[in-house]
């Protein structure tokens, strides 16, 4: 069977950097072709070339055998290439139907045909197994629902080629599984699907073929049967990663650093938990289980309204991030771009920000030369790769930005660290580095609370796992527990039902 | 110097589109106002706001009505001290006549023609007014609204006119040419031929101001006095001072300063003080700060006026009209005196604020001086 899409010798350079170098890629009708690669490997650039956002410097794209050149995304879209973007591209204040039809609005007598929009949107969503009301405003939907709208938008035109760029990054396991089921269905309908992901289990579950990119070059393309996780990871990072997850704590955890009794607020109820020095406590749960709310409460961002919290044995009030920081809490936000970095400031200033925030208002910005040196040392410890720490942080890759924010907290030396989705959207090598840092921080006697939607990560990294369901802690599991057991608690159902959900 | 000319010319060419300026040089009006300046006023002695210079009388019997009356006033706005003092005069006059007035309704146009038109409309719709006084923002713009009002009420227009004869009377002092004539003739009389005068003006394009400059310019030309510059200051003291400083720094000799309105006169004088130069001959206006400085520093100066007492006249006219008495009209020319060295002392009142206009004719009104900001 000849491929629907062929990309031949695609090259694209930005000023000095070659983002793509002679990359060949193709995709057949009815197959799922997964692209793997570290951040910066060129995956997104390749897809932007395909989608008409970038024009390639050299190379050729053929669709159904005919060469095409896209000047604008609209041309790619018209040619049958649909892209589900990693960053949501929705309009928050418009309805679901309006969002799905953006740029493709049906008209009747030259006017918007809203009835047709509603009907077709409803049909599309039904096909995706969703019953989101088409008139709902997108801002009122959950992230998962928004992701579905995004997919419906991409499927509006009977696409020949459907590109999904980390579509499960924002989804919890339940929603991710639903999405994977959908993909198999579309595959059966003969759509050529290009799928980008960092989640290895997912990749192995749905791929027909796998392509690995590294540093803008094609490493290899193989059938799934001929690829192993190890081979993929090795190809991605260029070396073997034996111990992806670091070893668990060798010693027994020490004294309790964090103790919560009977705490709750609008989203949380009856929270009792302990985190001890030297351990990593994983918090798992579905999207709306309250695990995010727990992190926010621990950091005083959305405070507890009842119950008691002790840190280091002393009762504390956590009504604002500042109070939490003063009480010895560090916090790595889940959304790096919106909640982590201050993009136009230097890498160094980003690392120094909390120190500056907690210092006396009119003190020297860097509290003396010492702190600059310390910031640089921490940045180097975290292996932040930047030409110069004075460079704007927005120019760094996501993984490096994340490391710089961890460096920010190293300056603060907190007793309790809250990590929210620490590796979301980060490539494999940076992931491993972050896990190692977390373990090292724990080994130095800190307590770590890690909130994550990534089940393997929860299971692989945590010493203990707390699973949340409907605003409560539904149960506790030891580190290394079966993923299924975690899921079972997260869903709040019996074992068999959970198994069914998983399929 | 040559470079400057070239630069200026290039820029001017680059920017000049269809440069268009309305003609403000009306020799007939110039002549008329020059005559009016020396016309003997008719009316009560010492009450210039009740006097008139020549002109006829109009019969108003048809407007006779039983009192007390509601007088409505559509004001252009109170965007400068002159209008603030004026409005206080009008309110003072109304207070003085309160036995005959039920209410004085004042709507403020905020300097927007469009709003003033609507204001007049809503006064008519409100149905309370017995007579309407209008001080228009711009002549042409308010004409249709005034015409509409004339059909329902007796209308009195003052300060600026309208392009219609329908109002019962149009009250105004001699006018802009008169102002320019008085001030420029004084300066010309104090300086030899070939002297330099700097003209400081507020903004371009305002009829009542342009005529002042046009009159002064022709007198200076006649007398052989050079107008070395004509600059707009926007009534901004800092700007005025800077402009004068720039002229001084340029090394030009300034023998006299002519101003089309006096509110920044003291700022202009300060520029000379700061530069350590003697004061020039100057024409200002009848504000207290200028008069005091004049007296204190023995300036060679004159203060022509566009007297604020004209704001009293419309109330008087309105009541007369509603009583069916004859009033001067259709144009009511008020005297437009100037303050000279001889009369200076009598116009200075230390109790009054610096920007108070001395020719307010308000000394006998109730509430003086507190209502006018005095002590």
């Amino acid at each position, binding site marked *: 069977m000849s491929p629907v899409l062929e990309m031949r010798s695609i090259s694209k350079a930005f000023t000095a950097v070659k983002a793509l170098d002679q990359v060949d890629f193709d995709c057949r009708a009815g197959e799922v072709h997964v692209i793997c690669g570290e951040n910066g490997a060129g995956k997104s650039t390749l897809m932007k070339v395909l*989608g008409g*956002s970038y024009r390639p410097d050299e190379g050729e794209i053929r669709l159904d055998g005919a060469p095409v050149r896209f000047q*604008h*995304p*609209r041309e790619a*879209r018209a040619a049958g290439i649909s892209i589900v973007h990693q960053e*949501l*591209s*929705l309009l*928050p*204040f*418009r309805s679901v139907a*309006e969002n799905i*039809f*953006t*740029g*493709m*609005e049906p*008209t009747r007598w030259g*006017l*918007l045909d809203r009835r047709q929009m509603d009907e077709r949107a409803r049909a599309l969503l039904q096909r995706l197994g969703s019953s989101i009301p088409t008139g709902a405003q997108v*801002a*009122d*939907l*959950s*992230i998962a629902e*928004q992701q579905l709208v995004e997919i419906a938008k991409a499927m509006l035109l009977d696409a020949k080629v459907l590109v999904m760029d980390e579509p499960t990054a924002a989804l919890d396991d339940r929603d991710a599984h639903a999405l994977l089921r959908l993909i198999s269905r579309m595959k059966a309908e003969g759509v050529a699907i290009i799928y980008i992901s960092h989640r290895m289990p997912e990749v192995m579950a749905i791929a027909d073929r796998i392509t690995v990119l590294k540093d803008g070059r094609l490493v290899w393309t193989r059938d799934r049967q001929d690829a192993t996780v190890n081979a993929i990871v090795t190809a991605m990072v260029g070396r073997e990663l034996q111990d992806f997850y670091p070893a668990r704590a060798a010693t027994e955890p020490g004294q309790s650093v964090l103790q919560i009794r009977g705490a709750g607020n609008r989203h949380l109820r009856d929270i009792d938990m302990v985190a001890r020095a030297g351990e990593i406590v994983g918090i798992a749960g579905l999207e*709306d289980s309250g695990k995010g709310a727990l992190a926010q409460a621990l950091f005083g961002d959305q405070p507890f309204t009842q119950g008691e919290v002790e840190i280091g044995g002393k009762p504390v009030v956590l009504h604002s991030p500042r109070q939490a920081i003063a009480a010895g809490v560090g916090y790595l936000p889940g959304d790096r771009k919106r909640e982590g970095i201050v993009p136009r400031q230097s890498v160094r200033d980003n690392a120094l920000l909390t120190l500056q925030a907690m210092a006396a208002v009119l003190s020297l910005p860097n509290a003396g030369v010492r702190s600059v040196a310390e910031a640089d040392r921490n940045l180097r410890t975290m292996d932040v790769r930047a030409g110069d720490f004075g460079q704007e942080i927005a120019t760094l890759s996501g993984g490096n930005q994340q490391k710089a924010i961890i460096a920010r907290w190293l300056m603060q030396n907190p007793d309790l660290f809250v990590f929210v989705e620490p590796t979301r959207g980060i490539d494999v090598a940076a992931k491993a580095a972050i896990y190692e840092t977390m373990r090292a921080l724990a080994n130095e006697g800190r307590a770590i609370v890690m909130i994550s939607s990534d089940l393997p990560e929860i299971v692989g990294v945590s010493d203990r796992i707390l699973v949340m369901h409907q605003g409560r802690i539904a149960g506790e599991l030891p580190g290394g527990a079966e993923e299924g057991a975690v899921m079972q608690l997260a869903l709040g159902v019996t074992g068999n039902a959970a198994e069914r959900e998983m399929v | 110097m040559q470079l400057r000319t070239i630069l200026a010319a290039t820029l001017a060419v680059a*920017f*000049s*589109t269809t*440069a*268009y*300026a*309305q003609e403000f040089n009306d020799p007939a009006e110039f002549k008329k106002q020059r005559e009016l300046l020396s016309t003997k006023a008719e009316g009560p002695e010492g009450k210039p706001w009740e006097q008139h210079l020549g002109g006829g009388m109009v019969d108003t019997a048809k407007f006779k009505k039983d009192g007390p009356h509601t007088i409505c006033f559509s004001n252009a*706005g109170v965007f400068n001290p002159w209008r603030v003092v004026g409005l206080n005069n009008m309110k003072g006059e109304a207070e003085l006549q309160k036995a005959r007035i039920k209410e004085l*309704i*004042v*709507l*403020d146009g*905020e300097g*927007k*023609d*469009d*709003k003033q*038109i*609507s204001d007049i*409309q*809503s006064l008519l*719709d*409100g149905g*309370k007014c017995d007579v309407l006084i209008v001080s228009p923002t*711009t*002549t*042409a*713009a308010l004409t*249709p609204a005034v015409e509409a009002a004339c059909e329902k009420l007796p209308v009195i227009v003052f300060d600026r006119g309208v392009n219609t004869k329908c109002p019962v009377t149009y009250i105004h002092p001699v006018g802009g040419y008169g102002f320019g004539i008085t001030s420029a003739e004084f300066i010309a009389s104090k300086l030899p031929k070939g002297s330099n005068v700097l003209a400081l003006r507020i903004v*371009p*394009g305002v*009829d009542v101001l342009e005529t002042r400059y046009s009159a002064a310019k022709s007198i200076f030309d006649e007398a052989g006095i050079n107008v070395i510059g004509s600059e707009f200051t926007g009534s901004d003291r800092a700007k005025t001072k800077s402009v004068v400083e720039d002229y001084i720094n340029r090394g030009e000799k300034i023998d006299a300063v002519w101003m089309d309105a006096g509110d920044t006169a003291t700022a202009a004088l300060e520029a000379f003080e700061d530069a350590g130069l003697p004061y020039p001959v100057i024409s200002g206006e009848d504000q207290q700060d200028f008069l005091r400085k004049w007296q204190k520093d023995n300036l060679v100066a004159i203060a022509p006026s566009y007297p604020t007492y004209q704001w009293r006249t419309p109330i008087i006219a309105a009541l007369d009209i509603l009583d069916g008495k004859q009033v001067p009209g259709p144009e009511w020319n008020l005297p437009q005196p100037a303050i000279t060295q001889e009369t200076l002392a009598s116009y200075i009142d230390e109790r009054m604020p610096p920007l108070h206009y001395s020719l307010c004719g308000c000394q006998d009104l109730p509430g003086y001086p507190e209502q006018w900001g005095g002590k």
Partner: protein
Amino acid sequence: MSVNATPVAMTRRGFRDVPVPVVVIALAALIYVTAAIVTGQANQISAAGLTGLLQRTVALGLVGLGQTFAILVGSIDLSVAALISTVAVLASYLMQGDPSMIVPAIAACVALSLGVGAINGVLVAYWGINPLIATLSTGLILQGLLSASFTFLSGSVAPSFQALAYQNLLGVPLPVLLLAVFALAAWFVLAKTRFGAHLYAAGGNPDGAKLAGLRVQRLVLGAHVIASFAACVAGLYLAARLQSGTPWIGRDGIYDLESIAIVVIGGTLLSGGKGGVLGTIAGVLLFASLDASFNMFGVDAFLKQVLRGAIVIAAVSVYAVRNRGHVA
């Protein structure tokens, strides 16, 4: 692009659900009626009084409708005041009272304003200059050229043109009808056409809109052209109403800042993507009824300014205070 997905409890009922324009219109009516009753001028609630009220909305309303387009695409237009002056002056200068010049004069004004809109659009959308700075600058340039070229009231419009501003049709003043037609057209474009939907998309999420195949730059340019066209109509209306334009009617009318204020008071988001015509009309009605009420109460000119400032803040804060994020 982030979509505000903070899980708001699903108990959004009551006051929060009432659309902003409705609240603002109710407020405007309340203020006006209260003023009329308290000051014993109940006749201001008559047809004549209300017509007078509507008449006050025309100029600002027209500009505001155009401004709505600019703000909806996430831009802003500060050049409208200068453009209004320019159009008003140009119209009266070209007509010089000659009815045969009405059409050429209007054509020239429209052409000029479309040009200004296009320049704004190019600077903002294609050159990437911050819209505040870009339109402030074009406004300054226009104002300067205008004041330098026309030092005074230049000519006057043709009498038959002027009549348009003063005539009634079925008891309603023509200008009010003009505003109504314009508002209806604007509403129609925004709510019923693809172009309108695309404007919302361009403002709500420019990157997303581009990926969905929209030509965002063209849309922003289009919105600016519409904003300038609306300012042109307002300028022509003012020229007709005032017989001749002065080079400062736009500036004195503060049409730039006031038009932004009414759009925002009407619930349109300054960042774009949300809002609409009804809100703008509500905003201008609020301003007009304030004006009329101040008149009825005889509020002192300076105090009026104080109250207006306070009300602008209060009106916007009523719903802005619900925002959970940071505002700058």
